């Protein structure tokens, strides 16, 4: 917080009154639930009533010793990494070429932005239809030889479908940031490089891409966190975690263990792990973006 402002208002009660609504809401719906998750993670509800008993790290030990959990962690990382790579790669390519400002680039710009508005359940259902083994685009493969493409039976196919839908959703978000980043590069720099004989592709590789490093790093973190947390809707409408748990991502597993299995303590322990993961990545973002990746 900067303390350089001198012209400030003073009042003993007014600032409190102004922040009170926000503080109340975040206390009830943010801090309390987070605290309660911690409490559940270290306690276990007694089967015959009588409240929760303290069990220490037992819930975590149970979670970490379960093969299903590690499977879920592995596929979550796989999902997050592939979605991020695909979404950022595609967006970078599109942004760089839109930034060349050929005729109609304004139109292209609008055309790249709208997918952000599409809800995850809607696009999830659409992708599920498009990749449906009986009526989708690849259905003809199954007529030739059954099972060539079947995300309802083949886990790899299901994961591919999920990654494509996830990346489709993130492309426009990344595009907005990358284009803003590209346009903040001083025109003079690009022109100077052109005078020195660097062609457009050379400039993209050696000038624009390095200057975009902070934006790219920021987007990697945001895309990863987003894939870890917001993938719930896609999984739920597209695969329901199946086939055979092959798309049972961490956030979906918390939901199914907590609400379907009614194992609050196990779900809470998993929530804590996911929270630490997300907080860790956010922290990394603040440290690096502020310190290392500035070229100014």
């Amino acid at each position, binding site marked *: 917080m900067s303390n350089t402002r001198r012209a400030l*208002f003073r009042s003993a009660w007014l*600032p409190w009154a102004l922040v009170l609504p926000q503080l109340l809401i975040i206390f009830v719906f*943010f801090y*309390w639930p987070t605290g309660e998750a911690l409490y559940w993670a270290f306690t276990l509800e007694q089967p015959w009533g009588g409240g929760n008993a303290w069990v220490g790290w037992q819930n975590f030990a149970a979670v970490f010793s379960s093969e299903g959990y590690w499977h879920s962690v592995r596929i979550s990382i796989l999902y997050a990494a592939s979605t991020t790579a695909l979404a950022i790669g595609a967006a970078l390519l599109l942004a760089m070429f839109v930034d060349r400002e050929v005729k109609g680039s304004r139109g292209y710009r609008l055309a790249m932005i709208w997918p952000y508005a599409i809800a995850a359940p809607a696009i999830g259902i659409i992708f599920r239809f498009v990749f449906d083994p009986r009526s989708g685009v690849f259905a003809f493969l199954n007529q030739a030889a059954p099972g060539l493409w079947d995300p309802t039976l083949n886990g790899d196919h299901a994961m591919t479908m999920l990654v494509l839908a996830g990346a489709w959703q993130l492309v426009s978000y990344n595009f*907005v940031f990358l284009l803003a980043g590209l346009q903040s590069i001083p025109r003079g720099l690009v022109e100077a490089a052109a005078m020195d004989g660097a062609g457009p592709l050379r400039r993209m590789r050696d000038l624009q891409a390095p200057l975009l490093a902070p934006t790219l790093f920021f987007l990697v973190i945001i895309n990863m966190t987003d894939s870890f947390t917001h993938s719930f809707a896609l999984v739920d409408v597209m695969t*329901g975690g199946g086939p055979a748990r092959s798309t049972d991502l961490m956030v979906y597993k918390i939901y199914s263990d907590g609400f379907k299995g009614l194992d609050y303590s196990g779900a809470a322990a998993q929530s804590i792990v996911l929270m630490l993961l997300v907080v860790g990545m956010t922290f990394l973002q603040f440290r690096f973006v502020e310190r290392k990746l500035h070229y100014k």
Partner: protein
Amino acid sequence: MVERRPLLNLATHLLLGFGLLCLLLPIWLAFIAATQDVAGANAVPMRWLPGPHLLDNLAAAWTRADLGARFTTSMIVALGVMAGKVGLAMLAAFAIVFFDWRAKAVVFWLVFVTLMLPLEVRIVPTYVVAANALRPFQAILDITGLTGLVETLSGVRVALEWRMLNSYTGLILPLVATATGTFLYRQFFMTIPEELVEAARMDGAGPLRFLRDVLLPLSRTNMAALATIMFVYAWNQYLWPLLVTTEPQRSTVMVELSRLVPRGDGLPEWNIVMAAALTVMLPPLAVVVLMQRWFVRGLVATEK
């Protein structure tokens, strides 16, 4: 453009066109399916040109998913979240930036930390709180022993309860409980020259007057930006409404859409499902296309 490169320009158009095609293709296929009858939507190989059944399918989707009522619910939730964020965040940021008070830094961090943990990772306990929103206060009373004290003094056992399941407050409030907006306003308020505050004070304006007559008009673009982002965010919510609305007649469009697809092995009536999917994604799409400028500004500003 820096130099003339006709060949590269052609390549640019090809590449951008291809990118566009990839983005549009799923929507196009959904649209085609929504214009077919059941047989047409399930035809192998897939049909690529529209059929004559669009209106029938839209009507069927509308009645089957009770979309009229669902649209009302979603609209109230989206507008509620939007208004809540735009309003509360502005008040909080105003207090944090323009007042000189001791707890300022602590309050700022308390609010700021909420940016780190999305609703999804604390979903189970948040649901339990929504089942009784006064649970935190009851627990505090129990732990501090106040419940027992009151009981011995007055003979009344304190049992606070406010069920939020299946209510608009339950749908809206937890979605408002993050700092996105507060942070956006804070960044903007920090850029306001302090001469403006001095001048306002010189003219005898108190803090609330300053908020209403100086900050509010200056913040209009930021408010529009935040409002578009929040509308889209709230309309597209899925996990939270799915949990909070246990009664089908209280749910939002997104939850209802997912219910159109049968669980298990039954073949969905894709033509009707696709018609419903296209219908429910229209409002946020319209907001983004019509408010493109504010939307892009809000997107960039809420994350920095």
